[in-house]
């Protein structure tokens, strides 16, 4: 109560000129005592507001939503091909993985408009006819500093595409692509959950998921090229 004592001294010194009523003093001390309530309230306000910002507003602000340039139906295409995913997402002769098909693969069937879907017409007129590659937005693209070999996982470890990519082959339309405004990569890398929680490996494509699976299966804990452990398995 040092401050109050000081106040009193000042009051005493100036008492002749400005009499201070006792009631005023009492009011002040009452306010001091009851301030704990509003302070906690403000704390809770701050807490709740920032939790809402962090959990709800921030993810909405962080990602911009983009539509793929052309609609695509995996189910429809899957019915028409013989070799499943690998019909279009194939391995090249040198073992490298082709990724999203180029126009050259689509052109075999879509040199001209086959059906009545306006999206197909758009694809043929805008891209096939003009020989322009479709600027597909790739959900699973990793940063360039990550080394990843599809052949090692699919051919050697016999993993299914679905393990990491989910059941995208059973989708009839392409999801909205959510692009991280800071890093420029897809939301699929971090995962749907902003907290990074996962139930399946396919929920997230960050290095903890890779590391976990490698640990569990005791697979290549060392770099094949440099025989060094840890980081060098994926970061060459």
């Amino acid at each position, binding site marked *: 109560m040092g401050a109050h004592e000081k106040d009193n001294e000042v009051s005493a010194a100036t008492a002749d000129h400005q009499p201070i009523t006792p009631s005023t003093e009492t009011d002040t001390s009452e306010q001091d005592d009851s*301030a704990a309530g*509003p*302070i*906690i*309230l*403000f*704390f*809770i*306000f*701050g*807490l*709740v*507001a*920032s*939790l809402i*910002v*962090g*959990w709800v507003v*921030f993810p909405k602000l*962080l990602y911009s939503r983009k539509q793929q340039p052309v609609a695509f139906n995996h189910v429809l295409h899957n019915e028409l091909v013989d070799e499943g995913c690998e019909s279009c997402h194939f391995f*090249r002769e*040198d073992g*490298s993985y*082709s*990724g999203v098909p*180029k126009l050259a693969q689509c052109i075999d069937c879509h040199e001209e408009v086959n059906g009545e879907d306006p999206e197909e017409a758009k694809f043929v007129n805008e891209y096939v006819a003009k020989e322009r590659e479709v600027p597909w937005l790739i959900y699973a693209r990793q*940063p*360039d*500093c990550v080394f990843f070999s599809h052949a090692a996982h699919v051919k050697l470890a016999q993993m299914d595409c679905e393990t990491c990519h989910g059941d995208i082959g059973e989708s009839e339309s392409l999801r909205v692509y959510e692009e*991280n405004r*800071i*890093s*420029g*990569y897809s939301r699929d890398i*971090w995962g749907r959950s*902003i*907290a*990074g929680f996962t139930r399946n490996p396919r929920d997230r494509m960050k290095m903890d998921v890779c590391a976990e699976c490698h640990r569990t299966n005791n697979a290549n804990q060392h770099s094949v090229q440099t025989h060094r452990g840890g980081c060098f398995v994926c970061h060459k």
Partner: protein
Amino acid sequence: MKVDRRSFLAFILGGAAGTALSPLPWKITDDISIWTQNWPWTPVPEKGEVSFLNSTCTLCPGGCGITVRKVGERVVKLEGMKGHPINDGGLCTLGLSGAQILYGPTRVKSPLKKVNGTWRKISWDAAIAEVVEKLSDLRSKALPHTVACISGSDRGTVPELFNRFLTVYGSPNFIRTASIQDSYELTLFLTQGVRAMAGFDLANADFVLSFGSGLIEGWGSPGYMFRAKSTLRENGGRMDQIEPRLSKTAAKSDKWISISPGTEGALALGLANVIIKEKLYNQEFIDRYSSGFEAHKKVVIDGFPPEIVSRITGVDAAAVAALAREFARAKRPLAICGRGQGDTGGSLQEFLAVHTLNALVGNINQPGGIVAVPEPDYISWPEIEMDKIASSGLQQERVDGAGSKAYPHARYLLSRLPEVINSSEDSPIQALFVAAANPMYAMPGSQNVAKAFEKIPYVVSFSSVMNETAVNADLILPNHMFLERHEDVPAARGFPKPIIGLARPVIGPLFDTRHSGDVIIQIAQELGGPVADAFPWESYDACLEETLADKWDTLVEEGYWYNAAFSAADWNSAFETESAKFEFTNRDIESLPRYNPLKARGDEAHYPLVLIPYDSMRLATGYMGSPPFLIKSVEDYILTANDVLVEVNPATANEYGLKDGKYAFLRTPKGDARVKVRVFDGIMPGLIAIPRGLGHTAFDQFLAGKGVNYNALIGPLEDPASGHDAAWGIRAKLSKA
């Protein structure tokens, strides 16, 4: 409820706690770290299918085979083609940097026309129409001979198309840029009577005596010379370097013989003196396959005994004699000349002196010797039918004087051109084409060259990069870069066997450029009449395929056509001179002024030192200029920041008060420059050495403004025997800045 300081603080604390309990800080940290590891502006090669395509490098006359690695549609790397007869997997730094030129900022991206000093994009149709109008106009005024073309080569379909165009149009003025080819061709013609290219079977020699040739600094075909030098070494062969400066080649030699610059010819004649006097020559060759030996013997014995040679060259007389004996006693000795990379015509008498050394030891058209490689003969186009204008135009004397009474032997004399233009009131050249050459940078006497180009009313550049000549042209018709086009690459400079490489497009044209072959065909066809008739081809590619005929399939399949079984004509049939023998001397050689070391220009009293140039594999001196990768690799004792360092001997530095790493003023009769000094033991006292390939004003920020252009400090020095530029240096002064 009042909001005071405390409640505000409580709110902030609550906010901080809430933020910490939300994923926000962790997620943002993660995102920012990813962002910093993958700057969006950092170029990353696209992902895609990896492919390898074979082609031929055209960045120098070396003719190396290349394998281009592509990822998707992006050229990622150029490597030497494995198994290629010239370079077998090796490639020089310029070749390795090819992709930087392809994608770099120096490319000319569309036809450009200069309007009031600034470049305007124009369409190909408009550009070609403009050239056609200009040429029609000159032709209608009966001035076809005032059109000239400067070309980096005179072999292969593209240079031949330019040459054919000029011929049928009516101009004799097709001019090849200068190089040691000029002197070697003439040497072979005068002594052996053949029109051939000089090839050097270095790999099979056992003693290479180089009169200043930068064997590992870009002389001849670098891809071949590097390899041949290694083979020579592996086989226990020896190489000696005669040069006033400890070049890289000298450093890698068995012996470095330091010599007063410009006197190499005298040393060659001194060696001949000892070889003849001591009868160390090849008796069989001299007796049965040579003529004029006695006359040559007299000149050499009388004029060049080791003592006199020692006084001229500064090489010890005993060393001259010892070197002569070692050279002559080797099994397959080979003498070569042409300083540095060999970009100057040179002194004909010097070349003759060195060449006759090879004759004395009988190492002509032999394994490990100098080989007369027949000029490519696959271009046989239909005869040209000329009209009157063309015939009378062709009867005019060449503007550079080559082939005239004064210069009967020279084929091209580009170095004379600036003087001729500057000394006439009206430029004798009214329109100039420049293809695969950068004369405004590469010709000696930059000021005079610039003045001459200024006087030419109409300059058309076919360059695919913005070099000095393109910058100063009136119109640029950009060629495809070599990775985007087809072209035959006949012969590799200095390679001892006939070979044709095929450059082919490994990527579609990136910009609105057009093959120069197509452009010339189109110009000809639009000019009409006999000019059009001489160009019956639909396109350049059609012309090329038709021309190469039965070689085409091999070229496409292998990337080159190579006559591996070729062996040079034996001595019975090798010489097409009057005597059918090798002629040490004959009427033509007799009529030339005798050998006399050419003195550097300048007054000794004002300019007490002598400036000489040197070449480096890390600096391109051709029409392309050094890409960033090369400039980055230049040693800091050659270039620091934008300053070039000139080398001087410690004794010279002491005498003139020059300090290592400090600025100095370099002055010659032709120009001056601010340079830095490098005190270097490996250079003769009294000399200053400066690298070639720097001091560009055009190209990009990585090259322009770095160092000094040697050509701006010198002028041409006419060889009295041939007319070619034979300048090897110039007198100079170096003073403290």
